[in-house]
């Protein structure tokens, strides 16, 4: 970073430190407690109580801001620097953004996940910028022999009376100023924002549109070889024997060997994210394509292990049986659900089911690993570098501080890159091969070896009173796990809606053992639960003879005394009312065969209500005409351009899941392999997504996830409105939608 710490000028407060740069200018580093994010630390692993930022200000007036968090397409590389630049009071055109490496001595919370970046950093990053501005002002005031309070700033210039000095002119002098306490440094009135709230294009766009290397898969280091890694198709299986010599004789192959870390001591992941130690066959050589071609020569006998008996068909049968038995555990019991169901005026019963899903980020998993000078240097698309490094250190038996991780831009994350299995593989292969290695997975590897969104089964009963009010709700949730533990992302919060809005509420669970890895997919648990809850609510509304949107508004008003819902019902009602008005709900003159469905969901602190309009031909052909989204993520959108992009993407992601996505298993193997049988949405299936906001007076929160969950149920409810058919299992492509 060309920084020479001339002064050792560490603030006595220990929060900020400034260093003079060789060649002029200042480098400001910050470390202080998290603030302005209630509950942030508890919400997601990796949320820590301190964080850090770096600003480099050079005499040319350019502020270079290190973007500390991994970029997966959520826009954080642009958003976090915007927060700093705003309070620094510098024009965005004078800002450069550089991706920081993973460095736990400099940064905290370097993680992408849980829509956490905005709530974690909204205040703190602003304080860093404000502190830097205060130092520039102090440096100017010192030169002009006046008080800092008498000076003002505007667009990268400090003013006092008729005098002015640019930040560039002040940068070196500011390096001599003791940094202020960032907790008390004043922040701008939001009415004065120049950058926050502006549509700022992504900082990497110029490189993206010209094809410059940015992604993990683009990394190249001198002397590097390419690798592929063949694993047992049965999840958890291991190599017994392989014809390595034949493979080594293939063109372009320089090495082939078995990698087995399953016996490594202490290789359990140190966090909520569990990654099994690798086992498989590495093929290494001079060309990725040639080493991948050599895979077809492999003849391997595998020890398939216990998961070979698991299949989707068996899960379906087992769930059905469990549904008839007493639930294994009670997750929540309010009032007397069984009694209320027995005495309800009307009852409804339904079984819902959703499949496993893959993440399918468009950039396949990859990592470049290079052992040199006694350490390991890696380039990796990874959402959780800190957990990854801890696990790498344990698995490899080397100290954490010998591992350097360069964060690359990621070709999508969606939760897949919370897990670092490919990093472990690359490191083990590079060590064994004795050369720098770039491991690249095929799409088939990526589809088969995911940490899947787990499927699940819900056996529901609902009861209505004489006036059609919901009085009882019972959900027997059949999921995956063993003993008291649910498999990752196979759990369900005990306070999911409609808990606290129904006097008699029972949530019960039973579990099936699972040998297949599962994990967080964008809006984890919510992406599945919302489909179940918001579809069954729709069934109850129909049974009550009420408008489904009004039924929801009434329900949100119905929280019994003494209940504390998981979210603020008023905020949810506001987005429902907004989406009702914007979509023309109940008033639009729709042609025959066209209908609207509605759903809402609260997740990741965001309130979202959505209407989907769909057309179904009598023959059963489905087209989605439009999606309306109303969201409330607090009082400020940091970057409205990216905010809308995220919401539209999340809504269409939900649409893709509902329409035609499922991962199935047979003999412990994933059956789907590429985009022909795990289908991503295409442009001709993508309807317009209209986005509207309720700007409520609450802390700004994140947008990567919460717009997704309402789409699948809203679409299924629209299909019901047209066809009278209830979709109780996903994907929709399984169902005959014809009607007459």
């Amino acid at each position: 970073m060309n920084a020479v710490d001339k002064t050792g000028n560490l603030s006595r407060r220990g929060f900020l430190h400034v260093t003079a740069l060789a060649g002029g200018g200042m480098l400001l580093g910050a470390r202080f407690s998290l603030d302005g994010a209630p509950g942030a630390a508890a919400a997601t692993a990796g949320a820590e109580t301190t964080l850090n930022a770096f600003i480099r200000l050079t005499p040319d007036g350019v502020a270079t801001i290190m973007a500390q968090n991994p970029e997966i397409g959520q826009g954080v590389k642009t958003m976090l620097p915007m927060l700093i630049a705003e309070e620094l009071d510098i024009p965005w055109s004078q800002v450069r953004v550089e991706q920081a490496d993973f460095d736990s001595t400099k940064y905290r919370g370097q993680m992408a996940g849980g829509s956490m970046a905005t709530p974690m950093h909204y205040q703190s990053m602003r304080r860093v910028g404000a502190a830097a501005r205060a130092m520039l002002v102090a440096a100017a005031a010192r030169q002009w022999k006046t008080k800092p309070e008498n000076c003002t700033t505007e667009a990268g210039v400090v003013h006092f009376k008729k005098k002015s000095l640019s930040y560039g002119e002040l940068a070196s002098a500011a390096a001599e100023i003791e940094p202020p306490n960032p907790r008390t440094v004043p922040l701008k009135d939001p009415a004065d924002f120049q950058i926050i709230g502006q549509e700022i294009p992504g900082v990497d766009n110029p490189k993206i549109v010209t094809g410059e290397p940015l992604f993990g898969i683009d990394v190249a280091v001198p002397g590097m070889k390419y690798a592929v890694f063949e694993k047992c198709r049965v999840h958890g299986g291991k190599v017994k024997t392989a014809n390595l010599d034949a493979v080594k004789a293939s063109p372009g192959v320089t090495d082939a060997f078995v990698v087995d870390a399953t016996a490594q001591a202490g290789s359990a992941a140190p966090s909520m994210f569990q990654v099994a130690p690798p086992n498989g066959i590495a093929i290494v050589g001079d060309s990725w394509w040639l080493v991948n071609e050599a895979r077809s020569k492999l003849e391997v006998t595998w020890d398939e292990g216990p998961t070979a008996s698991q299949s989707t068909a068996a899960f379906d049968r087992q769930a059905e049986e469990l549904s008839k038995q007493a639930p294994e555990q009670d997750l929540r019991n309010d009032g007397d659900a069984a009694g209320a169901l027995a005495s309800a005026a009307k009852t409804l019963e339904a079984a819902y089911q959703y499949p496993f899903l893959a993440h399918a980020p468009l950039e396949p998993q990859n990592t470049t690993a290079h052992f040199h000078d006694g350490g390991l240097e890696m380039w990796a698309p990874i959402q959780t570098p800190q957990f990854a490094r801890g696990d790498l250190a344990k698995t490899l038996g080397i100290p954490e501080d010998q591992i350097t991780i360069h964060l690359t831009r990621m070709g999508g994350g969606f939760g897949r890159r919370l897990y670092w299995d490919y990093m472990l593989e690359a490191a083990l292969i590079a060590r064994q091969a004795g050369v720098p290695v770039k491991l690249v997975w095929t799409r088939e590897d990526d589809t088969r070896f995911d940490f899947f969104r787990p499927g699940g089964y819900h056996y529901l009963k609902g009861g209505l009173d004489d006036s059609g009010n919901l009085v009882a709700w019972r959900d027997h949730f059949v999921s995956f796990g063993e003993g008291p533990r649910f498999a990752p992302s196979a759990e369900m919060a005990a306070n999911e809606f409609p808990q606290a809005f129904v006097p008699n509420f029972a949530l019960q669970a039973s579990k099936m053992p699972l040998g297949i890895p599962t994990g967080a997919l964008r809006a984890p648990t919510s992406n599945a639960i919302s489909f179940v809850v918001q579809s069954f609510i729709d069934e109850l509304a129909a049974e009550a003879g009420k408008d489904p949107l009004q039924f929801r508004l009434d329900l949100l008003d119905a929280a019994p005394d003494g209940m504390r819902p998981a979210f603020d019902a008023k905020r949810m009602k506001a987005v429902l009312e907004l989406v009702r008005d914007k979509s023309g709900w109940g008033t639009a003159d729709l042609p025959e065969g066209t209908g609207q469905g509605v759903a809402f969901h609260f997740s990741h602190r965001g309130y979202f209500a959505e209407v989907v309009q769909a057309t179904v031909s009598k023959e059963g052909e489905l087209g989605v005409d439009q999606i309306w989204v109303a969201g409330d993520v607090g009082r400020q959108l940091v970057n409205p351009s990216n905010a809308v992009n995220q919401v539209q993407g999340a809504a269409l992601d939900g649409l893709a899941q509902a329409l035609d996505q499922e991962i199935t298993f047979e003999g412990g193997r994933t059956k789907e392999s590429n985009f022909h049988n795990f289908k991503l949405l295409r442009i001709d299936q993508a309807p317009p997504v209209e986005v509207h906001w309720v700007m409520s007076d609450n802390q700004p929160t994140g947008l990567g996830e919460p717009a997704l969950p309402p789409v699948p149920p809203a679409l299924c409810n629209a299909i019901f409105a047209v066809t009278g058919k209830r979709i109780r299992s996903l994907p929709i492509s399984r169902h005959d939608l014809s009607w007459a």
Partner: protein
Amino acid sequence: MAIAFTLNGKSTTVEAPPEMPLLWVLRDELDLKGTKFGCGRSFCGACTVHVNGEPERSCRMPVSRAEGKEITTIEGLSEDGAHPVQVAWQEIDVPQCGYCQAGQIMSASALLASNPQPTDGDIDEAMSGNICRCATYGRIRAAIHHAAKLAQAPPTSHETATGAGGSEA
């Protein structure tokens, strides 16, 4: 085997197995990393390049078929990122993760070359082989329409916020 073709306007010769897909020749032999690998089976369009001006999936095109052809990759679409499609993509702020976008831009520029004023229907048809996992489809449509305008009336006014700064130098 030596294979000769024109790559981004320059004559190029590579030594490669004839059946090696052009994608891997571009990425790993010629160090042009802009063309992306997504599926390897013509399903996603991330690897789209122009072959004699037509969009082609380079992951399924043996390099031997490039012999004597004119190949254009994202790196060669313009000198300095000034192709109307590249400009429009930035002005509309299309990318999320950005991984698909080189392929999208190559398909979009080929579309506009043959159909300067495409309708939404034309766009859907021409672009349906290009998957965007982040689903930036609304903006892709908008950017293609915008590029069509830019191509007609060379750069004078820009309606969208451009925020010139912010990129890594």
